[in-house]
Structure formats: C-alpha cells, structure tokens
C-alpha cells in the first residue's frame, strides 16, 4: 500500500471506494485503461455496450485531476466526442454521476448544435472542465479567434462509438481536429471506445495518428453473449419468395411482444418502421398507449419522450430504425426483434446489445425474415458471429473537400502557417499520403478559388499575409461557421401541419418526389402534402382511402461481403443436406425446388439462368456480391452483351444476383455469355456504360457543401447570403464546363466508384466469376432464386440515348397518364 501522502494512490482509493459502495468491483480492463492513461498513453478500448467502458475511459482523467496538487488554469480539460448530439444529454448525466462522491468539483456540460448561443457564450467565458460535444461542434470551436489559447489545456479527448464515425467524412473531420489539438498540446492523450470491427488495428491507427505506435489496445469484457434466432415459419406454410415487409408473420411477432416485458423492434428502413407500427396498432388497438415509433425523421422531443418511456419501462414495444442503434442500454428491454435481414453481422450485434441484461445472461435477438431467402442470411449471420467474422469499416482517405473545409476553419480561427499545417495534416491517417500537388491545389482552392488564377477574378476567401493564412472578411467567416455544422447531413425539410405543430424532418429528396395531394405515413399518422415553401413541407391530416407509403430513399444496405460469403456456404450445405441450422431446414423444400428446376450454386460455381416470359427474355446471373456491386455489373454486362446483339436491356438487382431483360430473343450461347464475364478493361468500360457524369453530379452535392461551394444557410436568417446561392448541380455543371480538371470533380468520380458502386468488390466479383465454372440452365419457369429479381423494380439506364428520345419518351408517358 502506498502512503496516503501519494495523491495518485489516494485518487485510486476513492475510485475503488466508489465502486465498492455500489457493490461493484472494477473490471480488469477498466484498471488497465486507467493505468495506461495515468502512464500518459493513448489507446482504444474495445468492449461491449453496457460493460462499463465509459468509466474505463472517463475515470483515468478524473484520477489524474484528483491527484493534481492545485487547480490549473481555466479551460476544458477533457473533450468527450459523441457521434450523435441526441446522445449528449445522457452522456453528460453518466459522466457527472460519480464526481460528487469522488470529491471532484468539475463541471460537465454539453456543447452541440442544439446548445443555445447564450450557453455557448457563457462556456467561452467560463469554460467547464469537461465538454461533451460532436465532431462538428469541436471543429466550430476551432473556428474562432483565440481557439488555440482556449483549447491548449485539453489533456484528453475521448471519442465514444468511434466505429460509428470511422468510415465517414465526420471521422476525417475529427482526425484533423485531433491533429490540431495535438499541435497545441503534444502530450494530448486520445482514447477511443469502439464496438467490434473487423479492422480494429486500422481503427486505432486512424484515431491515434502519430501516437499509434505507442498506443494500447484495451480488450474489454465480452460478457454479453448474444444468441441469434429466427422466427421460422411453420413447416408446410407457403412462405413468400420475395417481399420486404414480413407482415405475414405479424401474429407470431405479436405473441413474442406479448410475452416480453419490453421489446425493441428494429426495421431496416423508416417506411418499414411506419408500416409495422401501423400494423401492430391495427392488430392490437388495446396496446395504443404502449407502442411507439422512433426513427430519424421524427421530431426530437417526441423521440426523447419515447426513449424516456423505454428507460422507465412504460412502453411495451418501440418500433425503431438505426436511430436507436446507438446509446446507452435500455435496462427494461428484454426482447430485441429484427425485421428483415440485418445485412451485416456488426449491425445485428449492435442491435442485439441494446437490450438490458444481467451479466452473464444471454441476450437474444429474434430475426423475422421478410421472405424465404432471408432465412439463409440469418443462419449466415449466426455463423459469422460464431467465427468472429465481423465486417471491417474502412476509414476514408484524401477527402480533399474535408481538408479544404478544415483549412478554412483554421484560417477563420487563429490562422495557420502553410508549412506547419502540412506537417500536422500529414500526421493523420486520412492524409498521410497527401501529395505536394494535392496540398498546393487545396491551398489554391481556398485562397484563389482554383488552380488557374485567371479563372477566378475577384475571389476572396482565405488570404495569405505572408505570415499566416487567415479569413479577414466577417461575412465569409460567419458563413463558414454556419457551414461547418452541416458536414454530411442531407438537406432536411421540416414536416409541419398547416396550423403549426411540427412533425419532424425528412430528406429533401423524399418531399421532392411528392406532389401536393399525395398522402404518406409519417410518424405514425397519415398526412397529405399541402404545399412546400422554403424548407418546410406543410401537411394536413389525411382522410379517405389510404395509400401506399412512398419508399424512403436509402435503407437498402448491401449485404456485407462477410455475410455474402457465409450465405454461399450455407446454401451449399443446404443443397448437400449437411446443414444443421433450423433456418436451412425450414428452407429445404425451396432448396430442393431450386435444384430440381435449375441448380443451387456452391462456391466456385456461377449460375446463369435463362427464362422466357411474356415480357421477353430474362437472364439471371448470381454472383452473390451485394446489390451495389450488382448494379455496376448489370450495366457492364448489358453493355458488353449489347456489343454482340443490339438490344435494349432492362436491369434489376438484389443482393444475390442481377437480371437482364430484353424484349426480343437474343439466342445467346453460354459461350458468348461466358466471354463477357472478364475483368479485362473493367474501369474503362464501366465509365462508358454507366452515366458516370450523372452519378458524379449527384455525388457532388455533399462534396460541394463540405468544400463551401454551395451555401445552404438557415431559413429566415442571413438573407444577404441568398445572393450567393446556387444548387450543387449548377456548380457541378459550371465546373465541368469551365474547370474540367477540378480536383473536387475527380473526387466525386472516385467516390462514385468506391462508395456507390463498391468498385473493389465489383472487380473482385468479376474476377471470381471469370474463374468460376459457369452453370447454365434454360428454365421454363422462374426459379426460387430468380423470382425475387423478377419482382424487383427494373431500372433502366439511359446513358446511350440522346435528349430527343429521352424527352419524347417522357412526354409519351405523360400523355398516357393524361389519358
């Protein structure tokens, strides 16, 4: 025992005492994290939710503070970064909880986009010792004069749910902010908390930057075993071959909800959530007060109320989307239900972990397949989990839009010197390989507008006074600060009743597809769109016959590579009768049918089916590479086949395969089909067959917003800024025309390839298809594998057609509609 005179030992004793009073004992990983922190190290804590990892990260800095001889100068000491501002309030409460008993008079406050400006000003005058904030708000703190002085006292940054930020541009933004903080305090300690990922080493490297060499990995408790089960349909019932709602299993789901104390029912999309919420209420009107809906579009206050209801155990069931994936556990929840395939193992485990639990007791997640083949995906998820095969999340690299934004942020704050900033930027994982030319381009972009001086007369944003790069214009500074908060969020529109009363927010793109008079289900209510003005969609309660819920954009995550591999194995085992999983047993009839009518491909086989229907000739090809890669593949193969036979191809994709439809008989031989399946010339031909410019144009929205090429502003504020507004599409066209070599256009094209088309996966799939044995079947009917593809909406690409024919076709379509 150390002598009581040793302040650090005293601090430790207080912490141990705090645990003991609750009848707890610190876990080994918590002690390890504290020791590492007190030794001045940085690191990554990998542990389950609810296992005490927050305390593992938090109490290190707290002990250090307790052991300090005297109060140091004012200024925040610990920054706690949370990916969602909705989590900030809970986090503040959790972090505050142990402090009074430990005898530390620290203030813990939040500072997010929701924080009132009066509070922010007070925080600036008299900063709390610990700030809970988001990457955007941290960036914003840097964008004010005096930031270096105010933040120089930060000893530790703790990044909660780092896996959530990793792989996004917000993660890159945070990497840059961390590099800045390390620049002003070289002994800064960085700690991250992460759930299981396939690439924890890389995650740690990206977070710690130059400290990665000496960083530690703290392996937390994995005392939260999770069992994945599925709601298998009774044998003998006909199970749908396609579909996405899963409502045919409603009675069984209701029974499970009834048996549970409190239940979280996750869906993959908001529209699915709306439909399930509605269906549950229709089935059990007596549960009206006990069932709630929670998704990203619903008004914040309402979501908060739902979360409080869950914590207090007042709700029987909450239907939710990924909006409830993160955050603290809901202790009363004892049943988690997943509607549809989770599409990834990591996501399923995250959701399963949301139920409260007794240590050592197995959490169960019940998966409800929406169609037959999802049973395979559930079995595959269980196997991947058993094998520890969890998806990786790759951190982004060289996002020049984020770098440009960060440099303007620095210039808006205390300014920067180019040589110092370059060194600092290169310490990040994201920009370690930044070339001198790229760096020069970004500097030119923010100071001169672009690479060619003559193209941008009168441009001013950041100026170089020979010493430091600074923003001197107040209007430019103000607009930049406004833009920092909107790094990746899609422009959102408020949904509001005509007579006031806000319902929530929804992506602009969703509203854009509606016309006044259209009805949709929103937040559990049927509403009718009345009109759209500025950034608000006015609605009224809808009466009369109900209508379909229009599909929300997104939500169609591709099946992860990890899961796709497991799916193929499961299918092969089912085919050979080796499978033990109950899901695969339930599927045995379907598997037999597929075998009888065609073939069920195993690893090393590529199945191609040809079926003729009234619509024409359908080619079904099954690479099992996920829907994004299949979209690119479908266009590519259609384009290549079109070289043999001139034809117009309709296309459809799902996670297992792709379909090409032609109105006429092509009489392609298996050899001809085999010949187009080659990785040769992939990149060039993909550019040719996709409307690459159109895809890049859409992708450019986000880039333009981040890099400061479009300014969205806020409704009702800063009217003068209206003068500067132009849509990202317009800016894209202008750059395309007058500055075709622009780096941000190149970035948009790259992002289309890597994110939208999963280029690498596509290339891998094509190589593996080429190496596989091609199994070709002419099938008289649609097989179980082909049917869901046939049922998918066909998406035609029109890249080869000219304006004239496109417009004429649209007009013909309008005329038909007009009768």
């Amino acid at each position, binding site marked *: 025992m150390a002598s009581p005179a040793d302040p650090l030992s005293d601090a430790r004793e207080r912490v141990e005492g705090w645990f003991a009073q609750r009848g707890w004992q610190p876990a080994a990983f918590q002690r390890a994290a504290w020791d590492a922190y007190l030794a001045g190290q940085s690191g990554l804590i990998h542990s389950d939710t609810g296992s005490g990892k927050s305390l593992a990260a938090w109490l290190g800095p707290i002990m250090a503070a307790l052991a300090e001889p005297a109060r140091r100068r004012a200024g925040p000491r610990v920054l706690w970064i949370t990916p969602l501002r909705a989590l900030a309030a809970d986090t503040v409460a959790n972090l505050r909880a142990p402090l009074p008993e430990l005898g530390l008079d620290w203030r813990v406050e939040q500072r997010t986009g929701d924080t009132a400006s009066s509070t922010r000003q007070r925080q600036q005058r008299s900063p709390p010792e610990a700030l809970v904030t988001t990457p955007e708000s941290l960036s914003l703190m840097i964008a004010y004069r005096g930031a270096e002085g105010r933040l120089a006292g930060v000893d530790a940054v703790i990044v909660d749910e780092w896996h959530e930020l990793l792989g996004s541009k917000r993660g890159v933004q945070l990497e840059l902010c961390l590099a800045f903080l390390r620049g002003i305090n070289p002994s800064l300690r960085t700690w991250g908390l992460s759930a299981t990922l396939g690439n924890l080493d890389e995650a740690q490297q990206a977070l710690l930057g130059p400290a990665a060499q000496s960083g530690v990995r703290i392996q937390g408790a994995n005392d939260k075993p999770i069992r994945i089960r599925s709601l298998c349909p009774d044998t003998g019932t006909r199970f749908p071959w396609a579909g996405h709602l899963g409502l045919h299993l409603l009675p069984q789901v209701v029974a499970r909800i009834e048996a549970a104390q409190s239940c979280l029912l996750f869906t993959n999309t908001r529209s699915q959530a709306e439909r399930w919420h509605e269906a549950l209420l229709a089935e059990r009107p007596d549960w009206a007060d006990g069932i709630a809906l929670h998704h990203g579009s619903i008004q914040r206050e309402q979501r908060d109320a739902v979360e409080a209801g869950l914590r207090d155990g007042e709700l029987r069931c909450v239907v939710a989307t990924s909006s409830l994936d993160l955050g603290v556990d809901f202790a009363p929840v004892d049943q988690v239900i997943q509607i549809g395939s989770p599409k990834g193992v990591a996501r399923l485990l995250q959701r399963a972990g949301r139920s409260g639990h007794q240590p050592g007791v197995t959490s169960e997640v019940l998966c409800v397949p929406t169609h037959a083949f999802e049973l395979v995906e559930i079995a595959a998820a269980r196997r991947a989990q058993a094998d520890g095969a969890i998806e990786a999340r790759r951190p982004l690299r060289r996002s020049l839009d984020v770098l440009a934004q960060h440099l303007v942020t620095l210039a808006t704050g205390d300014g920067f010197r180019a040589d110092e900033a370059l060194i600092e930027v290169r310490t990040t994982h994201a920009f370690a390989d930044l070339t001198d030319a790229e760096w020069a381009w970004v500097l030119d972009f923010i100071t001169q507008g672009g690479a060619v001086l003559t193209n941008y007369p009168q441009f001013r944003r950041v100026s170089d006074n020979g010493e430091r790069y600074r923003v001197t214009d107040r209007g430019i500074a103000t607009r930049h600060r406004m833009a920092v908060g909107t790094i990746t969020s899609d422009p959102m529109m408020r949904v509001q009743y005509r007579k006031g009363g806000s319902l929530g927010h929804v992506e602009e793109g969703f509203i854009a597809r509606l016309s006044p008079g259209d009805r949709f289900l929103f937040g559990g209510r049927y509403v009718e769109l009345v009109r759209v003005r500025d950034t608000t969609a006015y609605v009224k309660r809808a009466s009369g016959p109900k209508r379909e819920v229009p599909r929300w954009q997104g939500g169609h995550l591709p099946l992860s590579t990890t899961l796709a591999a497991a799916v193929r194995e499961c299918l092969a085992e089912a085919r050979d009768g080796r499978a033990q999983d109950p899901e695969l047993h339930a599927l045995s009839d379907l598997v037999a049918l597929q075998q009888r009518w065609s073939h069920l491909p195993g690893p090393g086989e590529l199945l191609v089916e040809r079926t003729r229907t009234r619509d024409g000739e359908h080619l079904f090809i099954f690479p099992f590479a996920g829907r994004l890669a299949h979209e690119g593949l479908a266009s590519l193969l259609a384009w290549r086949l079109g070289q043999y036979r001139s034809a117009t191809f309709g296309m459809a994709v799902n996670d297992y395969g792709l379909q090409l439809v032609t109105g006429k008989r092509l009489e392609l031989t298996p050899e001809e089909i085999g010949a187009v399946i080659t990785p040769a010339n992939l990149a060039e031909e993909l550019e040719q067959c996709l409307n690459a410019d159109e895809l890049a144009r859409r992708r450019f929205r986000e880039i333009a917003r981040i890099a400061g090429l479009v300014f969205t502003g806020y409704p009702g504020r800063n009217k003068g800024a209206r003068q500067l507004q132009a849509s990202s599409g317009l800016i894209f066209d*202008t750059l395309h025309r007058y500055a075709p070599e622009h780096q941000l256009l190149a970035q948009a094209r790259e992002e289309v390839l890597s994110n939208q088309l999963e280029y690498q996966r596509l290339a891998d799939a094509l190589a593996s298809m080429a190496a596989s044995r091609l199994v070709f079947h002419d099938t008289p009917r649609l097989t179980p594998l082909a049917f869901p593809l046939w049922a998918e909406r066909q998406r035609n690409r029109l890249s080869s057609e000219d304006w004239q024919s496109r417009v004429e076709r649209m007009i013909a379509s309008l005329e038909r509609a*007009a009768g």
Partner: protein
Amino acid sequence: MTRSARTPRPLPIELADEALLLDPAPGLIWPAERTGFVADTHFGKGAAMRRGGVAVPTGSSRDDLARLSALIERHALERLVVLGDFFHAPPVAGEPFVAAFMAWRGDHERLTLTVVRGNHDRPAADALASAIDWQPEGIREAPFELRHEPLTGSHGHVLAGHEHPVTTLRGPDGDRLRVPIFRLMPGCTVLPAFGGLTGGYASAPVDGEARAAVTPAGIFDLPS
C-alpha cells in the same frame, strides 16, 4: 400519333392574337417587330459568388453573351428586351463583365437593348445607361405589358420573368429530367431564366396553363 411531341425548333405560338416563337435559347421572339424577349440573365452572379468566397470559375457570362448574339442573329432582331434581373448584383469597379459586355454591345451597335428593371437590378440603379435603355416594370408594348414579376395585368397580356420556372419530367423507367419551361397562362406568359448560372423553381400549373419545355434538343410542348 395523337399529338406529335417532336417539334422543330423554334415552336410557333399565338399570344394575344400575335404570332410568336418560343426559341430554345431560351427566349420569346416577336418576328413582326423583330423583337426578342429574354428574362433573368443575372449577369455578375459568378463574380458576386467569388467575392463572397464561393469558388465558381468564370466563363458563364461570356457564354451567356454568346447565346444572346446567336439568338439575335438567328432571328435578325433589331431589339432585345430583358424582362428584369439583368444584373444579379451591381457591378463593382473593375468588374471584368463590364468590359466584356461593352465589347459585346459594340458588336451589336444597332440593336436596341431594353431592360425592365427587376428586383435584382434595383441596387444597380441605372448602371451602364449609355448601353442600356432602362425601363420601369409595367411598360406597355401593345398588345403586351412588360414586367419582371408576373401579374395578370389590366393593360394587356403580361410578359414576365422572375420565377425561373422549371418542371421535372419523368420517364417510364424512373428516368428524370429537370428542365426550364415557358408558362403560357391566360393573360400572362412567364419566360424561363436565361442566365447560365441560375437555378429554377417548380410550381403547380394554374387553370388553363400550357407549358413548353426547353431542352438541348429543342422546345417541347408539354401535355397538360
């Protein structure tokens, strides 16, 4: 075919008993008077954005002037009327656009250039008055009344701009195109914005409105 969608450019129409043409420039041509109407050129928008820190390259004003020249030549116009928002923001000292515009004006010396003052033109007062005949909103040009902001006027059929009207065409396969339109309403015709760096606003048609879409392939009469 019931109604042919294909229309050779430009599209002849009749307004207030006068024969006119919709040109894909986009502009409205009155051949009898050798007069052309365009709206919302928004010159100087790129410069205003650059001054405000938004890095858009130059080139769009130059192209807009070239498109005006082409329109003037195509129809041998003697007079060009801009229905407001000629300027996006008042030109500042040394603005490159001013020199480019004056050179362009020199190339069309005999042309009368009338601008109906729009909301964006107000701070510009009577800039470049040697080259531009500035007129207030509501001037009469029987049977038309020339305005910037659309209004059902009492003095005749109103020709106006201001709205930057566009619509979204939808194809059978999820194909979508957002295109500028002419709005031909009873008593009022709204022209699409001419400027290359202008956006658009979609609005619902009023009773009795006809619409024509402006595309690179020409003008298309849209079924109502």
